[in-house]
Each structure stands twice: as structure tokens, then as C-alpha cells.
């Protein structure tokens, strides 16, 4: 048993370093490092490149990666991305970090190649020397991990409590604005924090790679355990984060001691540990506080200079008077959207073969992306597990159609109905959670479904998945594409109706101010949140079924959380509140890789994912997505031209030509100049 505890402490120490890094970064900068796993993967991959591919010795490789590359990377990313985030809304912060999460792994492949890595090197030479302490076997690698944790905690505590730098960091944590007014440069402190944070991510990646595997998915699993500890620490209590991480590590190994090591149940318990810890912590917080709100970073002055209403307000400030006034069916916006949809609708007629297949797939992805439009765009719920509902929809539909012999369209519809209550329940359980906790909880839920349900051999079928057919009258890609497009239009009409109706206004109200929605309008917040959760789940599951029909296969491993984050990145790049953007994003998701693979060399294959990640990061600049923002700019231009023409006809100078720009400028001033 002692051996298991030692092994558990080693695993827990890796979790603890990750949790400590994430906690300190959050407390110091207000940003939860959703890209931690990708930082870990990128730098561990870099270490492998130097050590195994270039033949550098272990120590120089580690020093180069952790003391040169990591700080350099942090500095570049800080000035390019991270420095903009503290003044952005929680949604934008999370999505931008997810953009980094998505962009870094393909960047690693571009930088270091796509060599297949069967065994990742650690910091300890092979074979690992084993010591016997009190009768227990302790490997040198485990001792190294313990030593790093102890050293990091001791040095970190000393720096924070007894040095000038620590004083500055603590000042910045209390109030960024006041620290600035006291002569502390928040930028230099923040960049230092990010340097350390990225270096620790690299260290975690190098230490964990021999056991978790040098893959983005392996690092994501590790990050989920670290996040569970961070949630238990309420995002800010470092000692509790470290303690919970250590306990999780020991628990994980002791479970394998107490239960049969090769049983599926043992594996399920081990895989569920992060979700169990997350759930227990959130239940405890909820019972104690009646809600689990995000922890506000900074002080009163920081809050006072924040833009009221966040980025949504900044984006809303760009709404032109013309746009707001012209809400008729034939407004520029609506006509533009219809033209775009018409162009999309003729695509299956223009393409054949490989490209037609990609277009049909793009439509299926577009249908799934409408679930993001509903959850994130309409409900303001940053759900990171919608792909899990798509996966559940696919595997249930496959069971009903292939195993039970139901007609496939009926199977897909019934599967979506079956999955919907799960989403409604998740919506109910997270109703009193802040945005950050909703994101973290749904991430943990997605990983739980991935490890508990998607690994079940009934669905996995030995890794080949369950076959799925298309309706007999829509077997060819063109007919199938129109079938999916028809469903997409139906769901879109439903969403447009919702948006233009009382329901949409009520959802918009709840998204911006729950207090005013209940105590001024008398809205039923719980009912509306459950409604939008259920609708988003239904659409995701429906889309999952159609995606399985498209690929003629329901393969659970196609619906990993990692892939889901890439989907989110694609959608937000185009625009997460626009229906047209959903189908354009779907087409981009299939056509862009197709174009790169067809017309460019193989090494370019990862560029589309990299671009999607960068696009998500671009939300910092365009809170509604780049395409939506460009459409808005075009609309503004049309409005100005129309005004100028009207003025010319009337024979007067265009008096209000720059009214909208002034309006936006005014908004900038009112909102703290953050736009």
C-alpha cells in the first residue's frame, strides 16, 4: 500500500504543480489558464525535439526549454494577446485562452514535426534507478517530482512573502489600478507571472509525458485534474489547491490498490476523480453560499474602470442607429444573410466528388454549431461539453438505427430527444454558477462522458465505431447535403423566431442582468436557462446524429472535448451569435483542411487548426467574431452612403455622416475607453 501512496504522491505532485501554477496565474492576472495543457504539450514536445531528435543531453534540453523558450513564448504571447485580456469579459478571456489551447498543438507539429512518439523521455536517465525507503520502492523520477514540488512551493512562498517582487505581485492582486497609481508597472509584473506560469506548464509537461503520453489529449486529462483542485480551492486558495491535488493523486493510486486494477469499474472511478472532486466542491460551495459566482479579481477601483456590461456592451455600442432602427424583414442585415444562405444553398450544385462530400460535412457541422449559437450566443452559457451531447446523439442514434433497426431519421430525432434531459439537468445544476464555473463544470462533464461513456465497447465497437446509414432516398452526397441543409434552415427559423420574439428579449435581458430581470421584469430565470440548455442540447444531439450519418459511422472518439474546443474556436472566429456564421464555420471546418491538403504540401495540414485558434484569440478585437464585425462595418458604410445620397438629393451637407462613429466614440468613453 505504501508503494501506491508514494506513486500517488508523485502523480499528485504533478497535479499540484499544475494547480499551483494555474491558481497563482489566475489570482495575479485574473485569467484562468485554459491553455495550460497546450503550453505543457508544446514545451514537452520541444524538450523531446531537442533531447530525442537533436540529441541534446537532458539538462541542457530542459534548461533551454524551461528557461529560454518558455519565458520567450510567454513574453511574445503577453504582448500579442495576454495583456489585452484583463479588461475583457469572462467569456472573451476564456474563449481567447481556448484559442491558444487550440493553436499551440498544431504549432508544435509545424515547429517540431509530426514524429510518432511512443515513449517520451523524462528528466531522469533510463533505466530509472529505484531506491527502497521504509520498504517501499521509490523511483528516482518520483523523487525528482517531489523535489520540484517542494522547491517550487518554498521558493514561491519566499518570493511572495519576503521579496520586493512578491510585494508588487500582492499589490497587483489586491487592486491592479491602485498598484499602477502606486508606481507598480502591472505589465512587467504580469509578464513575469506568465513567464513563470508557462515555464511551470512546461515542467509539468516534461514530468508527466512519460506516464500520460506526449499528446494534447494526455495533457488535457492532466489539466482537468489540476482544474478540479483549482475549483476546490475556489480559484484562489493556493494551499488548498496543492493539498487537493495531492489527495487526488493518492486517491487515484489507492483506488487501484483497493479495487481490481484491470476492471472497467476501477478505470471508471479513476477517470471520474476530477469530476467527483469538482462536483463535491461545487455542491459544498452551493450549500454554503447558495450560489457559486466567479471570484472578482481586483478592487473597487478596478471594477469602476471596467467597461459596464463587458464586451457585449462594447460590441453593442457599435450597433449603428440604422441597424437598430431598421429591424424589418428586409433590412440590410436580413437581406445580406439571405443572400449568404442562398450562396450556401447552391454549393452542392457547384461541386462534385470530394468537394461535394466536404460541403455535405460542412452542413452537418453547421447544424451542430447552431447549438453553440443557442447556448453561448443566446443563453450566455459557455458550455464546453456540447460536443459530448453531439457524440451522445450520434451513438444513441446508431444504436437505435443499426442495432434496433429503426428508420434512421426517426432514430436521430428520438436520440436527440433522449439526450435533451441530460442537458436540461446540467443547465439546472449550473444555474447559480458564474460563467467561469459553468465553463469548468461543463469541461469536467465532457471529459467524464468521454472517459466513462465513449470508451464503452458497445459504442466504441473495438475502435471502429457503430456503422450508421443514410435514408435510402438520400444516400448520395448531394441529396444528403440538401437534407441536412433543410434541417439547418428549420432550426435556423426557430432560432430567428426566438430571437425576434419575447423569448429572445427575455434571454437577452437575463444574459445581461439577472437582478433586473427578476426584480424589475419578473422573469423566470431558472425556466429560461433550462429552456435554452435543453434547446442547445437537442440541436447538438441532432447535429451529432447527422454528422454520424454523414460519415456513415458513429465513432465516439470523434467527439472528444479537445475536438469540441476546436469547434468552438472555429465558430467564434466567424461569429458565435450569427446563424449564417454557423454554416460558414461548418464549411470552413471541412473545406479549409481540404484545400490545404489538396493544394499544399502535407506540412501545411495543421495550419487550418492553427488559424482557427488564432481566430478565436481575435475575439479580443472583435467581440462578436470577425465576420460579424466585418458585416457590421459594411452595413455602416452602406448607411453612410445612403445618408450622403439623401443629403445630395436634398441639397444639404451630410450633417450626421459620422454620427455612428461619434456614437461609438462616446461608448468608448462611457465604457472606460476600453474599446
Amino acid at each position, binding site marked *: 500500500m505504501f508503494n501506491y501512496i508514494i506513486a500517488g504522491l508523485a502523480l499528485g505532485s504533478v497535479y499540484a504543480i499544475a494547480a499551483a501554477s494555474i491558481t497563482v496565474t489566475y489570482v495575479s492576472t485574473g485569467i484562468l489558464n485554459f491553455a495550460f495543457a497546450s503550453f505543457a504539450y508544446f514545451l514537452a514536445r520541444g524538450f523531446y525535439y531537442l533531447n530525442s531528435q537533436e540529441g541534446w543531453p537532458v539538462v541542457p534540453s530542459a534548461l533551454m526549454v524551461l528557461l529560454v523558450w518558455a519565458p520567450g513564448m510567454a513574453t511574445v504571447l503577453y504582448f500579442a494577446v495576454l495583456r489585452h485580456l484583463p479588461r475583457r469579459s469572462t467569456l472573451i478571456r476564456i474563449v481567447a485562452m481556448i484559442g491558444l489551447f487550440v493553436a499551440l498543438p498544431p504549432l508544435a507539429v509545424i515547429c517540431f514535426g509530426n514524429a510518432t512518439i511512443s515513449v517520451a523521455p523524462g528528466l531522469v536517465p533510463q533505466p530509472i534507478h529505484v531506491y527502497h525507503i521504509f520498504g517501499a520502492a521509490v523511483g528516482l523520477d518520483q523523487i525528482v517530482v517531489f523535489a520540484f514540488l517542494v522547491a517550487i512551493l518554498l521558493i514561491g512562498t519566499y518570493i511572495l512573502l519576503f521579496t520586493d517582487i512578491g510585494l508588487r505581485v500582492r499589490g497587483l492582486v489586491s487592486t491592479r489600478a491602485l498598484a499602477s497609481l502606486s508606481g507598480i508597472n502591472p505589465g512587467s509584473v504580469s509578464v513575469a507571472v506568465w513567464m513563470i506560469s508557462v515555464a511551470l506548464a512546461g515542467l509539468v509537461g516534461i514530468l508527466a509525458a512519460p506516464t500520460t503520453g506526449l499528446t494534447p489529449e494526455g495533457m488535457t486529462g492532466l489539466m482537468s485534474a489540476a482544474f478540479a483542485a483549482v475549483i476546490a480551492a475556489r480559484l484562489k486558495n493556493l494551499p488548498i489547491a496543492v493539498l487537493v491535488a495531492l489527495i487526488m493523486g493518492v486517491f487515484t493510486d489507492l483506488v487501484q490498490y483497493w479495487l481490481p486494477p484491470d476492471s472497467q469499474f476501477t478505470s471508471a472511478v479513476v477517470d471520474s476523480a476530477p469530476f467527483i472532486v469538482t462536483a463535491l466542491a461545487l455542491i459544498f460551495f452551493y450549500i454554503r453560499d447558495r450560489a457559486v459566482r466567479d471570484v472578482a479579481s481586483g478592487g473597487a477601483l478596478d471594477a469602476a474602470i471596467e467597461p459596464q456590461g463587458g464586451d457585449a456592451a462594447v460590441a453593442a*455600442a457599435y450597433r449603428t442607429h440604422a441597424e437598430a432602427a431598421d429591424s424589418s424583414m428586409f433590412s440590410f442585415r436580413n437581406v445580406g444573410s439571405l443572400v449568404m444562405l442562398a450562396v450556401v444553398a447552391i454549393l452542392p450544385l457547384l461541386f462534385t466528388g470530394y468537394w461535394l462530400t466536404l460541403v455535405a460535412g460542412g452542413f452537418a457541422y453547421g447544424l451542430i454549431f447552431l447549438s453553440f449559437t443557442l447556448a453561448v450566443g443566446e443563453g450566455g452559457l459557455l458550455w464546453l461539453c456540447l460536443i459530448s451531447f453531439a457524440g451522445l446523439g450520434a451513438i444513441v442514434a446508431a444504436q437505435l438505427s443499426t442495432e434496433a433497426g429503426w428508420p434512421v431519421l426517426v432514430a436521430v430525432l428520438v436520440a436527440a430527444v433522449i439526450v435533451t434531459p441530460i442537458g436540461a439537468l446540467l443547465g439546472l445544476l449550473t444555474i447559480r454558477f458564474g460563467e467561469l464555473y459553468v465553463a469548468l463544470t461543463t469541461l469536467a462533464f465532457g471529459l467524464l462522458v468521454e472517459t466513462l461513456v465513449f470508451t464503452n465497447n458497445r459504442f466504441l465497437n473495438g475502435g471502429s465505431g457503430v456503422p450508421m446509414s443514410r435514408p435510402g432516398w438520400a444516400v448520395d452526397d448531394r441529396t444528403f447535403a440538401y437534407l441536412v441543409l433543410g434541417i439547418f434552415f428549420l432550426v435556423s427559423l426557430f432560432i430567428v423566431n426566438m430571437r425576434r420574439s419575447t423569448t429572445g*428579449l427575455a434571454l437577452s*435581458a437575463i444574459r445581461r442582468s439577472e437582478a433586473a430581470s*427578476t426584480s*424589475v421584469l419578473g422573469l423566470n430565470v431558472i425556466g429560461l436557462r433550462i429552456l435554452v440548455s435543453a434547446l442547445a442540447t437537442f440541436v447538438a444531439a441532432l447535429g451529432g446524429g447527422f454528422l454520424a450519418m454523414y460519415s456513415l459511422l458513429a465513432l465516439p472518439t470523434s467527439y472528444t472535448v479537445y475536438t469540441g474546443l476546436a469547434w468552438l474556436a472555429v465558430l467564434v472566429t466567424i461569429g458565435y451569435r450569427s446563424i449564417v456564421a454557423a454554416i460558414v464555420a461548418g464549411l470552413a471546418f471541412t473545406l479549409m483542411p481540404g484545400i490545404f491538403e489538396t493544394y499544399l504540401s502535407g506540412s501545411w495540414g495543421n495550419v487550418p487548426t492553427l488559424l482557427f485558434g488564432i481566430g478565436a484569440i481575435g475575439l479580443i478585437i472583435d467581440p462578436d467574431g470577425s465576420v460579424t464585425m466585418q458585416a457590421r462595418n459594411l452595413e455602416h458604410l452602406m448607411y453612410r452612403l445612403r445618408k450622403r445620397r439623401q443629403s445630395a438629393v436634398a441639397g444639404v451637407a451630410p450633417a450626421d455622416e459620422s454620427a455612428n462613429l461619434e456614437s461609438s466614440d462616446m461608448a468608448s468613453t462611457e465604457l472606460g475607453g476600453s474599446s
Partner: protein
Amino acid sequence: MTAADQTTGRYRLSAENVVVRFGGVVACNGVSLGVPPDSTVGLIGPNGAGKSTLFSVLSGLRRPTAGRVYLDGDDVTEATPQARVRQGLGRTFQHPEVFAEMSVREHLVVADRVREGTRRIWTDLLTGRGFSPKNPGEDERVGSLIDSLGLGGVAHASVASLPLGMLRLVELGRALAAEPSVLLLDEPSSGLDTAETADVVGVLRRTVAERNVSLLVVEHDVALVMDLCEYIYVLDFGSLIAQGKPDDVRRDPVVRSAYLGTETEELEIEIQPSDASPGKETV
């Protein structure tokens, strides 16, 4: 305040012996007050007196540790905020709580529609009302309210682009669109300049006169409260230390020493009616 007061319709909104404790801190200590029909009542007190806590209790955002709240004679102590809204209670906030993505008009439309029937929130989804032509009645009601608030020029502007004074009018309009019988106003002049304050006061006077609405106003601007309200309650450290007509409160020695301070000469200047001194002499 007697039980008969609650049931005979003397008050539209009343609180009876409300106690709110946060751990060992008593934020409200047995506070009772009442808002008669068609009247404007003020609630004043220094920072930390418990005004905002009492407002939260009245609007249902916080449950009292003890005491009761009555709305039009009904005990609504256990009722949710939305139930109180449906029963005729409205409110505004000290820091305007607006829906940042909506236009001014949309703020009033959503309140109007919810008043017309909360079922529409659910039925609109299935009936395709989003594609229906505009409702002329709704247009007229909302348009008229927008005009009466002087917001016609910015009706289609996003609230994100509006200055604070207009945001307060938008909040007020949204509350009025729900046609409340009692309106709670939390610091309606906070952060406003003299002209904006005058605008808000004008709207409030018209509201009481034309819409048959009772107001309960929490305000730091003592001159404004003395000028606007017919009856005033004074809170200090969670307890009610005085109540009465503005002149009585102005002369009350307890109020002078506990709330306004002991410097009588300064006090005379501070609480001049706002017509004489419309500035922001906040204590």
C-alpha cells in the same frame, strides 16, 4: 404600524419589524415603514444605515431574518422577486442595471410584453410571433412612454452608448412599462449633474401625478428628498431613528445629531429645498 394598516389598504407597500442579520452584524433592526397610495416617500440615512438592505428585502432579492413585507395588503415576505413584480412592485438600482445589448426601445418593449403576459415567453417559440407584424398597441404604449421620458432621440440607440442620466431614465422607463403600483427608486440622482437631476425629478413628479404610482425613494441628496417626498423615514445603523413630514424631519434633533451631524449652521444650508438650492449638497 398595526396589522389593520396592512389590510385596510392604508399602505400599498409596507414593512413590519424587518430584521436582517449578516452573521453578527444587524443591518436592519426591526424597521417598519409604509408607502400610502399615490404618494412619494423618502428613505434616508448615512452610508451603512441599511437602506439598500431594506430595499433588497422589499423587492424580494433578500429574505429578512424576521419581520413581514406586505404589498397591497398581501403578505409577500416569502414571495419571489418575480412574483412581487407581477403583483405591482417595480424598482431601479443605484448602479443602473441595464441590458447592455439592447436598445432603449427594447428595454421598454420587453417590460411591456412581460406585463402583457409572461406566457408569451414560452408561446412565442411555437407560434412564430417573431415573424408577426409589430403590435400597434405595443408600439403606441412604448412610444408614448419613450416620449414622456424625453428619450425619443435615442430610442433605437444601444444603451451602451448612453450617458448615466439617460440610463437612469431608461431604467425608470423600463420599470414604468411594467405598470407598477409601487416603485422603489434606489438613489435616482446618484452621479447626475444638476440638469440631469432636474430631468429625473420632473419625470418622477409626472409619474406620481399621471400614472397613479407610489414611490419609495432612497437618496443621498437630502435637498432632493425634502423637496420631492411627502413623508420621510430616517435610518441609522439599521434602526429607524425618525419619521415624519420633511419639515418635521428637518427639525428633528435626533436626525440633526445622528444623521446630519451637529454643526447646525451647516445643516441649514444642506437641507434647503432643492428649488432654492438645486445643487448636489450631499451630506
